[in-house]
């Protein structure tokens, strides 16, 4: 009996001492790094690692090094919840950057709330997230804003009168679709039809054929790039030559560039390299030097989110509740965090107000649209 007790004591000491000794500050980044949305995850990963390196190069946070820990949740709500539990119960973690998909975010949310762990999402745009937990923040705009913005852009700049919507059956896509439809009706754009597809389909021709007969000015695709590129090609192959396509930030992916049919497609994005402020120039340069490509908005937003987390830790130390209060206190333009993708400050729900930009594909490259909506 004594022996067992002894072993247990040793175990306890070992386990507690192991935590205590760990020196670097851990900032976990939870998103999908593998799976269908891996190309989004890549931006997130790159942005986070770059910021981590930069912080460490400047001597860390108050002298302590930062360690970026990547947690893969495959955009699967169940995986997200397991990862969230792991993080919530890790005393070394005081703030995290995470979750890409809104469904993953919604699954993880209650766990962070119960563990009083503040989280900053660089990419979850679903409307309903904000109100659900005081511990959740995001430095990206919401779907309703984006949908509204797109409708205005389509009306005022592009002058579309008839638009068809082709959305995926998921939270992101449908949130956008609803917001867009609402605003479009106000502006007098005719929504000719709304069709849906699921993520595992590759045949979009029946719906596109239907659209073709309606003769829309443009088709709005509030989905992700893997399907977006297929939709565009198939639309061309069913004979839609003179129809424009536009989407939201889900289509903002280099995958679209490989598709010659996508020429002229425009999307909204929270970050535009050529329109970004002076502080972004260094980031873009460093990013290009390190990864050999232009950063996308996932990279920029994650870069900012990690920076924000680091700033919070630097200001109030590694205390979850204090960090949360600190983040919540950034509630006006004056107190905002100056990031590469603009100023970040939160409203009472932890949502942020940010500008959106429009970029389009020109000669196989993303470029900022000539006319932006102000």
């Amino acid at each position, binding site marked *: 009996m004594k022996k067992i007790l002894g072993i247990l004591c040793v175990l*306890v000491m070992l*386990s507690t001492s192991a935590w205590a000794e760990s020196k670097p500050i851990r900032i976990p980044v939870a998103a999908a790094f*593998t799976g269908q949305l891996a190309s989004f995850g890549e931006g997130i990963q790159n942005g986070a690692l770059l910021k981590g390196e930069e912080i460490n190069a400047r001597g860390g946070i108050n002298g302590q090094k930062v360690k970026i820990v990547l947690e893969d949740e*495959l955009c699967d709500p169940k995986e997200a*919840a397991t990862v969230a539990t792991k993080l919530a*119960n890790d005393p070394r973690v005081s703030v995290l950057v995470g979750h890409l998909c809104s469904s993953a975010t*919604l699954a993880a949310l209650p766990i962070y709330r119960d563990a009083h762990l503040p989280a900053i999402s660089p990419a979850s745009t679903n409307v309903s997230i904000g109100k659900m937990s005081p511990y959740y923040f995001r430095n990206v705009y919401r779907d309703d804003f984006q949908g509204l913005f797109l409708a205005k852009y389509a009306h005022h700049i592009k002058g579309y009168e008839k638009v068809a919507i082709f959305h995926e059956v998921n939270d992101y896509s449908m949130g956008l679709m609803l917001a867009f439809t609402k605003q479009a009706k106000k502006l007098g754009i005719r929504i000719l039809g709304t069709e849906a597809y*699921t993520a595992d389909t590759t045949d979009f021709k029946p719906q596109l054929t239907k659209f073709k007969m309606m003769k829309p000015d443009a088709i709005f695709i509030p989905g992700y790039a893997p399907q977006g590129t297929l939709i565009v090609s198939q639309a061309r192959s069913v004979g839609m030559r003179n129809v424009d396509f536009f989407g939201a930030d889900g289509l903002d992916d280099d995958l679209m560039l490989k598709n010659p049919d996508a020429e002229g497609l425009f999307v909204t994005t929270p970050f535009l390299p050529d329109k970004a402020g002076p502080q972004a120039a260094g980031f873009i340069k460093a990013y290009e030097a390190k990864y050999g490509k232009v950063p996308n908005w996932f990279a920029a937003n994650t870069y900012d989110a990690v920076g924000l987390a680091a700033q919070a830790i630097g200001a109030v130390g590694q205390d979850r509740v204090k960090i949360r209060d600190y983040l919540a206190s950034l509630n006006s333009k004056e107190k905002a965090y100056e990031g590469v993708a603009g100023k970040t400050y939160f409203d009472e729900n932890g949502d942020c107000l940010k500008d959106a930009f429009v970029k389009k594909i020109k000669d196989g490259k993303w470029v900022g649209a000539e006319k932006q909506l102000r």
Partner: protein
Amino acid sequence: MPRPQEVNRSQVLIIGLVLLALMLPWLPFGASTNYILRVLTTAVLYMILALGLNIVPGFTGLLDLGYVGFYGIGAYTSGLLAIHYDLSLWVILPLAALNGALWGILLGAPTLRLTGDYFAIVTFGFSELVVLVLRNELWLTRGPMGLPGISPPSIFGHPLTRDWEFFYLIVFLLAVVFVVVRRMEDSRLGRAWFAIREDEIAAQCCGVNLIRYKVTAFAISASIGAMGGAFYAKWFKFIHPDMFKFWESILILCLIVFGGMGSIWGTMLGALILIPLTEILRAVLPQSLFSARYLIYGLILVLMMRWRPEGLIPFESAQAEKAKQTQKRLTGLVGKE
């Protein structure tokens, strides 16, 4: 008075396991206790699900690929009841089980006269249709937006939030399901199922009404699955149609094939080994391989069928063990007389 050696082994095992489970939250795992508890809660949940599924392919010998449909129905029943009516878990559980059983009967009554493969395919189609409905009927399920904000269960007005509380709750549920399944197995009902599994024609000629007992098995299995789903919704506080995809059915099937189809201890052992295995894989495998972890489950199914189709604890040995217990009991009776 039972003498000490008459206490049978499985009773000792059960008592030991219950004690172990009760002690578990208080063992010194340091900061990772909650994580371990959460993984174990998942494992116990899958033990319940595996026990439920086991009734159909294990006891009755019909391959049911649509189990996750009932799991999803249970979860959404629970989630919707919790959100719209704010009912207590103790009201929700039986209602979810009832709803599961209802759908089980609706699906089972026309389909259970099909032969094995066709039955498997129809159940598969059913589970996919359930996911489609959950995904597209926005007015009811909010579709792909999922159902967030499900209130946690409470006991005597005390809401459960900590991981050990959920762990105790699920262990309690497992105990209930275990007792139910054990009683089913060791009764007229269970024997009729076994007879159908072994030989339908002979069973018929022994007076077993095939359809009735198959439907009963299906309904009970479905209601256990739905109950698991009900707990799941209350525990996760968020449910999403993607959580109830076909993979889950395969995973649960894999558990019972691995553990031993038809043996209660086997199915529980299968869940207890394979579910934590996922977490171990997460730690061991590199990121790029982790998303392909189902490869291992596929391999388990193939290899088990090839080399040990009866699983870790085979049905026969479970039956032989049961016969031995009966022998002990009967000779004990004879001795007393």
